[in-house]
């Protein structure tokens, strides 16, 4: 395979293999994990749920943060309504209760959704490390197809098991279309 690739002497981010079908990629990702690699990633034009198992991806923190934010929004919304109506601006209208719970539900509900929804989106973006203005994977010319029609697997040089020659041999054993070196 080395005939296809130009060797980058220093500053190698990793080795990237390109696959034609999602099935090949999922199989390759599973084998990569089973071979003991930790720092690797797959790149696909649409979410492939089989990869979550193949790569052992089970990050539930987005859901956790959303839950916490939703509960805070709920408590916050209700407290706001209560504090305004009973403390900051109490109005005695025919002796009706100042803390009129049913009337506070809409505001409480909307605050719950607002905080939960914003947190779901923002925590997903931040935990994905976005925005990322520069990333080495884009140095591979054919990588533009990751957002179109092709499937990629990149083993990163930071991985303790990474060794240029043997990793390239390992990737070649997965029958990719092409293997490319990724410059930093």
């Amino acid at each position, binding site marked *: 395979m080395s005939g296809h690739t130009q060797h980058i002497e220093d500053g190698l981010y990793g080795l990237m293999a390109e696959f034609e*079908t*999602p*099935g*090949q990629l*999922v*199989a390759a990702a599973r084998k990569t994990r089973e071979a003991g690699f930790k720092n690797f*990633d*797959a*790149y*696909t*034009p*649409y*979410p*492939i749920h*089989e*990869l*979550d198992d193949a*790569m052992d*991806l089970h*990050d*539930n923190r*987005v*859901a956790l943060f*959303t839950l916490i934010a939703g509960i805070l929004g709920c408590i916050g919304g209700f407290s*706001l*309504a209560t504090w*305004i*109506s009973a403390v*900051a*601006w109490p109005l005695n209208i025919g002796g009706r209760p100042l803390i*009129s719970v049913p009337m*506070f539900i*809409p*505001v409480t*509900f*909307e*605050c719950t*959704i*607002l905080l*939960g*929804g*914003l947190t*779901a*989106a923002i925590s*997903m973006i931040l*935990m*994905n490390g*976005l*925005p*990322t*203005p*520069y*990333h080495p*994977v*884009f140095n591979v010319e054919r990588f533009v*197809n*990751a*957002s*179109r*029609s092709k499937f990629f697997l990149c083993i990163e040089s930071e991985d303790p098991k990474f060794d240029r020659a043997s990793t390239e041999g390992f990737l070649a054993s997965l029958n990719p279309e092409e293997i490319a070196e990724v410059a930093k």
Partner: protein
Amino acid sequence: MAQPVELPDSIHVGPVIDPGHSLASVSDKVGGIVLKRRITLGWVFGLLISFAVLQNLMAGATWLFIKGVGVWGINIPVGWGFAIINFVWWIGIGHAGTLISAILLLLNQSWRNAINRFAEAMTLFAVMCAGMFPVLHTGRPWLAFWLLPYPNTMALWPQMRSPLLWDVFAVSTYLTISAVFWFVGLLPDLATLRDSSKSRAGQLIYGALSLGWRNSARHWQRYEKASLLLAGLATPLVVSVHTVVSFDFAVSLIPGWHTTIFPPYFVAGAIYSGFGMVLTLMIPVRKFYGLDDIITLRHLNNMAKVTLATGLIVAYGYILEAFFGYFSADTYERFMIWNRMFGPYAVFYWCLILCNIITPQFLWLKKVRTSPGKLWIISIIVNIGMWLERFVIVVTSLHRDFLPSSWGMYWPTIWDWAVYTGTLGLFMTLIFLFVRVLPMITIFELRMLLPGAEVKEPVAH
């Protein structure tokens, strides 16, 4: 994996996506509308007309700011005229977008993939138009921020028990969450545009907007979680928004408004009018941009069915309203229904029945549901019908309430029409710009519909 259930052919009207498509071809086709397609004379013409109509809003709002709300037709007893009619109408239209993007996502309806982006854009633009009306209706829109609870030198706080304040919270949350949901959905497609753009400007703009999305599986996993959570949160939200809007009426004591059927009947009406508007916009877009292989007859058929179903709920609402009026044995309720049917605004009521109860019955026929032209005409009638419904609810209840001495009539002035048509211009301008600068179909979700997208792992050797 579960075996797909064999359904008789009569259930479906063709495939969700033309079988000739591949991963690359859908990306190029949808992305190409933005990146490669030339600007056509028809588009320029449409944009110019919309932009010209938008100037009505500028003129109407300017005159309103100079003179005050007296330039509108509102007065006692009808203090809620076009502003509230159009607010409710626009916000209802928005509901189809959230229904398609959130509720159908949770229900795993894959046909939504081709239409959700467009419908969500429609939601955003419709909510923008809607939000303007209550703000203009305050009479002093530059002080509209007084509606928000914030510490101020007057030491005043908003009334948390007022449905009008609930509206502030509901509509602003709705706009925010819809925008966030829309942007999250756009991220991967903006990355596709960045990668397939040939111009430096395109790469920079779409690159910045995509936040450097790189289709990583580790990102997709969190992305799918976040999408599902947003859909789960948006589903009760969309139901709550029109419920709160209906509370504006139902919490009051005016005959015809003070009824418990309002929340569900408003939500159904919102979805009904929203699907009407999606059809009105999508049928021409599909034709002009040659998207009939992606937005297939099956989509039109399904949308027509939702329109019919929600239309029947709306019809049930009308019948029950009349029944409540009779059954309540309350003089004012009975008079209100009589006045609605035979009073000075009777023609509006009967047009509404014609538009919203009679016309949708044609959708029982498969021939109508799968004929874009006929469906388009029905969708226009649905839009008009829903606008008439808002008019009838707002005006007929207010203009003759309890005391005959305080009865009056309401007719909109030219400035009412200016602001209303102006928001139509704004809406259409935004739609015209949207179809040229952003992918109007969710490309990455379209890819998931393709037969090649399924994971078939090669047998180990």
